[in-house]
């Protein structure tokens, strides 16, 4: 199977998801600049992203 990716234009859903990751990134960077050790660990980054980009949105959706 051959897939072709066009760069195209992201739709509204893609942009909303991207916006969420941008917010998560801004907070990650702010924490990292305050406490530099936060930036060193890949696993800290993974756990942080799981919490902010999946766990919290999932919990909020269930509450609402």
């Amino acid at each position: 199977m051959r897939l072709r990716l066009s760069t195209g234009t992201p739709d509204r859903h893609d942009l909303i998801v991207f916006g969420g990751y941008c917010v998560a990134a801004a907070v990650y960077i702010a924490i990292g600049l305050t406490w530099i050790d936060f930036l060193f660990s890949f696993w800290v980054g993974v756990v942080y992203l799981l919490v902010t980009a999946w766990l919290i949105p999932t919990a909020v959706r269930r509450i609402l």
Partner: protein
Amino acid sequence: MSWAAHDLEPYAFQRHLNLKVAFVPLLIGSYSPDMMSKWFVYGIHLGPWDLKASNPAQFHRGWPGVGFTHSFLFGLVICLILWKGFGSKLWGVSFLIGHWAHALTDTGDTVGTMLLFPWTFHFHLDAWAYAGQTGRMTDAAAYFSGLGGMWDLVWIVYGFFSWRVLTSDYFDNVIFRADAFWPWCNRAVPRGALLTLYRAAFFYGTSRWIAWTLWAHVIHHYPYDLSWGGPHWVPAAHP
């Protein structure tokens, strides 16, 4: 050495190879040359002990040392173990691509890599200064002030240009289908969490690049030096 390229390169390869590669071993391959050695290059405090290589560049990239982890042969051996030993050609080849990309990228600095080990010649382009011996913070400042940081930026831009590889559709139709690892994980981990995990290295590499750039140039005002082999305000190591 590179700070974010190894997080980002796998997504670029993924864009072009689609179902021909598995993302997890591609990423592990990309990280593998430094997995066991970076801590000893920068040094750590362990109770009363300070553990650090006496010659970090030699330890990291040379022989004697663990520089063989940055050679084509090392990637090939692990590839064959995964392929012939564990029966997964897909994992073996994907690991090999990720690993060789790392080994080639690290030829960009002033120490370079022993690509053709056991031949111990260092292939090095001298585009940016290797400063791991100066400690983690100075290394970060130097790296994000020279062409190394710009090389990372190329991968970030290319990653955004390839934005479709980060979408949930792509994850479902390519990443998830290409490798049985993902359905196996999906027995215990929800699909949304797996999608987030798939995106994690790109998030980590990009966010960290921005954070270190701000740290080096907004908070600490280290000077940019984008000349070949720079920044020249840091003592660069050589083989």
